[in-house]
């Protein structure tokens, strides 16, 4: 059995799939940006129990590698790595923006933009879907201020939470279509906006089984250096 999960966004998403057919046997998604560490393990246990699958029946683990807020992202990665190591099974990573791109049903090239906090987005550009449903990543993943990359995303439907948060900035230079505040896609020319805010573990699972998502090592895509507050030299304590 293939166990898939992603903790790179505000959602904790888990799915279990048949490793041959890719059929999803169970899944769970909870949106709570601050409790990844608390939610993931119980969600895995519940998905397994509901499907009647024992942990020893797992044959592979797939995990979203971000980019995403570091603290939550690491919860998924360290869980995947330790589980796979003690179970003696394979673990693969998938760029979380690739998962989002695959979630779009649009027959067009798309951009993915997610919330990178600090008024920035994680983003990537994708080709239109191939016959098997896979999408080639053309640029990214990268992290930037929305206004600085708006011209790169111009004219493309934008998938993901970034479209919700920065619809106006991104949409203004996109197709000019109105940015739906609840929708996760803007600028879908003529179409109803899609709601694709967070990566789905179901899509991750089937994409890995069918080979329509590109797999990597389960390593984090941080894209930013760690914040460091340099401490200066000792302060003078003598009266001036």
């Amino acid at each position, binding site marked *: 059995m293939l166990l898939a999960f992603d903790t790179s966004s505000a959602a904790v998403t888990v799915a279990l799939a048949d490793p041959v057919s890719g059929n999803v046997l169970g899944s769970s998604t909870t949106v709570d940006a601050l*409790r990844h*560490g*608390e*939610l*993931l*393990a*119980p969600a*895995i*246990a519940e998905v397994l129990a509901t499907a009647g699958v024992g*942990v020893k029946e797992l044959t592979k683990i797939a995990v979203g590698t971000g980019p995403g807020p*570091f*603290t939550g992202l*690491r*919860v998924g*990665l*360290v*869980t*995947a*790595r*330790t*589980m796979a*190591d*003690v*179970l003696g099974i394979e673990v693969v990573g998938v760029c979380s923006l690739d998962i989002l791109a695959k979630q779009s049903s649009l027959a067009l090239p798309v951009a993915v933009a997610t919330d990178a906090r600090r008024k920035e987005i994680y983003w990537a550009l994708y080709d239109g879907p191939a016959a098997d449903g896979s999408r080639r990543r053309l640029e990214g993943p990268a992290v930037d201020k929305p206004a600085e990359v708006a011209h790169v995303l111009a004219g493309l439907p934008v998938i993901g939470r970034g479209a919700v948060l920065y619809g106006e900035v991104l949409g203004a230079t996109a197709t000019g279509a109105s940015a739906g505040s609840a929708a996760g896609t803007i600028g879908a020319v003529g179409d109803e906006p899609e709601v694709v805010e967070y990566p789905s573990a179901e899509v991750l699972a089937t994409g890995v089984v069918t080979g329509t998502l590109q797999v990597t090592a389960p390593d*984090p895509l*941080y894209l930013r250096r*760690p*914040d*460091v*507050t*340099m*401490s200066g030299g*000792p302060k*003078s*304590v*003598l009266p001036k």
Partner: protein
Amino acid sequence: MSENEPLILGIETSCDETGVGLVRGHTLLADAIASSVDEHARFGGVVPEVASRAHLEAMVPTIRRACETAGVKPSDVDAIAVTSGPGLAGALLVGVAAAKGLALSLDKPLYGVNHLAAHVAVDTLEHGELPKGAVAMLVSGGHSSLLAVEDITEGVEPMGSTIDDAAGEAFDKVARVLGLPFPGGPYVDKAARDGGDRAYVTFPRGLTSQRDLERHRFDFSFSGLKTAVARWVEAKRRDGEDVPVNHVAAAFQEAVCDVLTRKAIDACKDRGYEHLLIGGGVAANSRLRQMAEERCAAAGIAVRVPRPGLCTDNGAMVAALGSELVRAGKTPSPLGLPADSSMPITTVLN
């Protein structure tokens, strides 16, 4: 050691050490550590995001190393213990998630334990069963406390603690003033041992005046001491004189150890306890160990300090506390166990 006792794996990630320990009963089987201290040294302190990244990379290799050392397979493990808090939130989260991954995969119970109680429980690995009724002095990078401990699995009762800097923090700050590397404790200790004259200067002993004792009998204060050392050193430098690093280190250390041991013994007397346990990174200090031995012997108190390697953060201490909790039949933690960065010292198990 009894082969029948459960095998406990302990994980520690509250600060900059990724520790994985394996313990059966009171027997230490493995204590694997990966440290990111070198990555922090140039910043003069621990950088939380750097520590968290290092924990993620070190986790699986450290678990493997512990199992290899102990000659066990992960599937032999009977329970997983992990530091649930207190500590750096992002760092704790990596250890807690890894522990859950193990508990899930091995279908074994999970115990989310208090890091500070683990600093006390680690002594079981060296000196066996903890005495029923003891004062524990916890002196580390973030804490300096006197605790009354009847039964570590039931909880601890705080008697007093620092009102400003922790003892280890004072060591680290004074080391910086003296131009010694980070973390400073071991370097101050070494400088003092290398011919330092403890009586070269007399630095202040915080909260020991009669007036302070009325309100702060079992509390500590090291901030005034640190400032006194800094002033003394700066005045020398201003006057163009050499700073005798070894002497200053020895005199500073003397002041810290004097106050710590005096108050710890007073706490034992107050409670009528005949045992003093010392734990935490500063318990590795050679002068503190020596002074505690001498003064406790004179006061008729048995003192227990684990060997220096077990005083600083490690996974074995977490496994040791886990082992006590399992033996006491405590209820395991839920899989929803949080990383609790400000876990109170009175909570042993989350």
